[in-house]
């Protein structure tokens, strides 16, 4: 019987199970939320200081609205349109979270009390108004402007990311002429139909993230 080769082969064999380890190192780089993927969970404080989690609303669709009262485009929507969308959502059992990612150092920054007061003055009706001063949640969703709108379905998957409507301007009269993306999307969700628009161009003022002040 000739020398068997198994010494060398056997020496190599233990390495075989280890090889897939290289491919199994989980990627730590975090990619922004994309439509079709599960929406990243977050925990933020509302204007009264209570913590609110996105996963609290599992089982209901959720609309995320990035807002900043100092921005003329947000003001344009709060001339009545945003409030009516928020009420429409409530009637369809869709949760609405207004999120403000303005950093504390920005001149646009409002304290939680002041933001809550502004929302009340505007007769806004979100389920909760959340403070994201660190900007982490905004960055997790790659939110760039205010208003920037996202919709998460009842199973926690992001199904819409983009603008509130189709005409990028600061004129209130353009709201009536534009395609109302969010209104359409909410009607389609309530009817169990697939969304006709899943990604559109958002427009508005840049979000004043922490570290972005010139």
């Amino acid at each position, binding site marked *: *019987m*000739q*020398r*068997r*080769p*198994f*010494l060398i*082969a*056997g020496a*190599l*064999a*233990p390495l*075989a*199970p280890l*090889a*897939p380890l*290289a*491919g*199994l190192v*989980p990627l730590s780089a975090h*990619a*922004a939320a*994309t*439509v*079709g993927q599960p929406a990243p969970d977050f925990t933020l404080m509302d204007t009264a200081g209570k913590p609110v989690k996105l996963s609290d609303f599992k089982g209901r669709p959720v609309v995320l609205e990035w807002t900043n009262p*100092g*921005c*003329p*485009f947000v*003001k344009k929507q709060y001339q009545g349109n945003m409030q009516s969308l928020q009420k429409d959502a409530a009637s369809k059992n869709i949760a609405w979270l207004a999120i403000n990612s303005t950093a504390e150092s*920005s*001149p*646009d920054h409002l304290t939680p009390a002041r933001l809550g007061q502004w929302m009340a003055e505007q007769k806004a009706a979100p389920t909760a108004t959340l403070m994201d001063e660190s900007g982490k949640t905004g960055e997790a969703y*790659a939110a*760039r*402007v205010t208003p920037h709108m996202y919709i998460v379905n*009842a199973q926690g998957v992001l*199904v819409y*990311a*983009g603008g509130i409507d189709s005409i*990028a*301007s*600061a*004129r209130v009269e353009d709201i009536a002429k534009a395609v109302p993306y969010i209104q359409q999307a909410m009607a*389609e969700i309530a*009817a*169990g139909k*697939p969304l006709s628009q*899943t990604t*559109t*161009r*958002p427009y508005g*003022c*840049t979000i*004043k*993230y922490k*570290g*972005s*002040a*010139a």
Partner: protein
Amino acid sequence: MPDLRPIPTSAVPAAPAGWRRAMHALLAMAALAAGLAAAQGLPPAPAPGGLSLPGLAAAGGSRVVSPTVVESPQARAELLVHAPSGARPGARVQAGLQISHAPEWHTYWKNAGDSGLPTELQWSLPPGVSASPIDWPTPRKFPIGNLANYGYDGTVLLPVTLTIGPEFQGDAIDIGLQASWLVCRRECIPEEGRFQLRLPVDGSAAGAGAAFDAARQARPADRPAGSSQLQPDDTALKVVLDGLPPSLRGQRLEFFPETPGVIEPGAAWTQAWDGERWTASIPLSPHRSDSPAEMALVVAQADAPGKGPGLPGVRMEVPVQGSWPAPAPLPAAVSPALQAALDANAARAAAATASPASNLTFGAALLGALIGGLILNLMPCVFPVLAIKVMGFTRPGTGASGHRAQGLAYTAGVVLSFLALGALLLTLRAAGEQLGWGFQLQSPAVVASLAVLFTLIGLNLAGLFEFGSVLPSSVASLQARHPTGDAFLTGVLATAVASPCTAPFMGASLGLAIALPAWQALTIFAVLGLGMALPYLAASWAPALARALPRPGPWMERFRQFMAFPMFATVVWLLWVLGQQTGIDGAAALLMLLVVLALLVWTLKLQGRSRLVLGGLSLAGLLWLGVSVGPGVVRPVDDAPAAGVAQAGGWEAWTPELQAQRLAEGRPVFVDFTAAWCVTCQFNKRTTLADASLLADMAGKNMALMRADWTRRDPAVTQALAGLGRNGVPVYAIYKNGQAPVVLSEVLSVEEVRAALAPL
């Protein structure tokens, strides 16, 4: 915001030139007065969002200074016209809006970038006169943290060309302009203005010549695309531009796409010059909504000094090669009521699968593991190893005690390897990895390495080379002096190769094992190893077997060479698995590597110079191949069929959404969880699952047939398997709305499937 209607041309009576000029002056003064009067009523700070101003049209805190100038603390906008030779029919004149920004403020380009709005010009012109679109000067980039915008600061003129057609009549052109622009520093203020200017046909308006010249110089030069191209991959846009002017070569450039929403303006990107060709890789926007076939873009020198437009650049319309990455498919929309029903069903199913697992007592699981291990010995990957080992008993000079020691060493090798693999699996599962049993073979690199290993073993068995001539004699004698160590390592090898072949009885045991406390799980793995080592152990302990084997002779050599063939058969199987993962090119590349490897190994048998020359050549060839086609061997090819596309025989590619959809349609669903490297799966696929009468029965029940491919570690499949209490393949499950899923056995028979179909 009320706008003042422009003074209609017809309402102004024609008057002699002098009167006309006086009239204009009066009107200007009246406008100024009105503007100033309105300004008195202004609140102290300009409020964003627009003010309602009586008097002439302005917005956002701007005030009208003259019919052609609107000014705010942030920006001064003026309507300019350049008509040095008058404005007769058939002529072209230049008009435009000049914006002078306050320091730190800017307005936007045609593509504003991450936020902002481009300046808009709406012309009101008499019939016969038309305006071209804005001839945008080269922009600048304004980064803000992770975001960026494109626009202008300082002073910029946005010119258009007015073409006076032959049908125009009159002696003056009343040019009206409604402009809106967004001026931003960190905050943004939308501003608007209405401008008016009367241009006599015969006169000459050349005062703004310098500004229009500067604007023309600042516009990007049009260049043909030539061989430039854009190619999107999964995350970035690869740009290759050819034919850029020499003034730009070697410079750091800025990239301005005219199409918004495609790339990420603020993300870090790379660029390089390759002679005359400029290349760049720019991250795509995660919320990209456009997939254009061609993109117009401007490139210019980066970091232009000063203010105003950027340094003059180049504009090209470049075609896009290849296809844009597809967005992730959305989950099928299910109405809330149906979703509630599906959730309830899933909860019930989870509760149901928990009970069969507990029915399988620990002892039964151990028994199943033992039998499974025994059956593993029959797999073609393991059998040659076992056979050669058993043959070793015929070697003279090893006594019964030597045999027993080798038997124990082999068993130790196998059991310890199974324990190690089990521990690795449990650790990685605890760390959150989506793994199941057989996970080693989900990586093309592992498959390729195993193929190389088996080829070498096969070539050795066939007699192409001997290890004695390859190794230094010290190592070879080591092998001879420590047959027990050799046996131990053989056990390890056998385990590495056997683990992916899931045999019957093993599936439930392993699925249970993962859920148990660690010590119980590891015991099951150890017993599995024991089962696999048992035949050899028994052979080594029974001296009767050694005596029963025929005496050494030439038949041993023939038997050894014969064993090479199951080894090569295993290599073919591994190549087939690799082909599923990296495509036919990857598999062919590996085959070529194996051929050259065999050549190299053969040359080692030679002597003297021929050994040196041929050995050197084959080694060089092997290295060259490794570098040139090597990467193709391990690069996975993504050719998973699209969800919902029917494959041969009516099988659809499984996705959770498609399954939900079929269930929602009221159809039962048969899911075949399979993988390319799973021999049992392939066996069932070609026998039971291809049986025509069975498929007809399934069609009679309107059953949806789905195949869940786990060859490439799909996490959705791993999750579905876990939901059934399994973590390996094959698994055959029948789902129906309102019932718990039925899991069939791993070696599928037609009768078993028919029996499961009956109650549906």
